[in-house]
């Protein structure tokens, strides 16, 4: 019989001695890396080729985005604290840190909604120029990933509240953390390439 009837989910161990779920997830992150690099490449290739405004230097709000970047970096800290708490069986703090991570992710998304709304009011849409098109596709795809991450974290938090997420599920939290940190490193690159190098 298999071990899948009750208790915590245990990933199959590969012949490499690694957890199959973690191995598969790193392969997924590798593919995501290719996706985001293609979007960043597109942004850079078309950079400075817009023939009508608004242009990046006229519209990008560095102080506002810096706060969003700080928010996402702190959410990564909350995520590793959640993982450390779950690994040592401290589910009370595990729940608190998981919720804080999801909350900071939601704040980031709120900031992105405000930024996008402001840009549209200033006349920058997907159809306005090459900058608008590549900017919204790149940051919008990242925002969609953050949304998935927030939903994933909230699901874990609810399961923890129900007592269905325990120390035995530390690998589940670790894998969700891998996703969340990847979203964070993508933003580190976007913040530099899109916002600071104008």
């Amino acid at each position, binding site marked *: 019989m298999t071990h899948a009837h009750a208790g915590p989910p245990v990933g199959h*161990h590969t012949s*490499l*001695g*690694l*957890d199959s779920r*973690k*191995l598969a997830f*790193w*392969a997924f*992150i*590798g*593919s995501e*890396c*290719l996706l985001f*690099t*293609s979007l*960043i*490449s597109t942004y*850079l*290739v078309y950079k400075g080729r817009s023939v009508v405004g608004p242009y990046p230097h006229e519209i990008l709000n*560095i102080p506002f985005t*810096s706060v969003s*970047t*700080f928010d996402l*970096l*702190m959410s*990564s*800290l909350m*995520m*590793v*604290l959640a*993982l*450390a708490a779950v*690994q040592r069986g401290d589910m009370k703090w595990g729940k608190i840190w998981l919720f804080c991570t999801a909350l900071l992710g939601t704040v980031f998304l709120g900031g992105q909604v405000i930024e996008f709304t402001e840009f549209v009011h200033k006349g920058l849409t997907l159809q306005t120029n090459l900058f608008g098109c590549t900017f919204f596709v790149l940051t919008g795809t990242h925002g969609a990933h953050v949304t998935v991450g927030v939903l994933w974290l909230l699901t874990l938090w609810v399961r923890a509240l129900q007592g269905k997420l325990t120390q035995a599920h530390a690998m589940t939290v*670790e894998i969700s*953390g*891998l996703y969340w*940190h*990847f979203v*964070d*490193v993508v933003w*580190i*690159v976007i*913040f*530099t*390439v899109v916002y*600071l*190098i104008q």
Partner: protein
Amino acid sequence: MSTQQHPTVDVYLRVAAALVILTVLEVGVFYVPAFHPVLVPVLLVLSACKFTLVMMFYMHLKADSRIFTFLFGAPLILAVTVLVALLLLLLGALTLRGAGGAGAG
């Protein structure tokens, strides 16, 4: 199962402090006119430092199996190579176009 040793909470906090400092430096460099001639390389180095810190400590690549590093590193190297090649091709096309325009003029 991988038998990696994850960093302690103390290490996580130190990494977070380093990330915040690097972000403040990035934004500071952006606003200081004296740095503008070297703005792009400085920002790229600072960004690479932040990227590496998160990958090594928060994603545990420093302590985890090298196979995970390969699964992430190989696509990353491929992607960056394609990115650089694309930018060089574009730069070459612009240079040729500029030279052609100058010749025609």
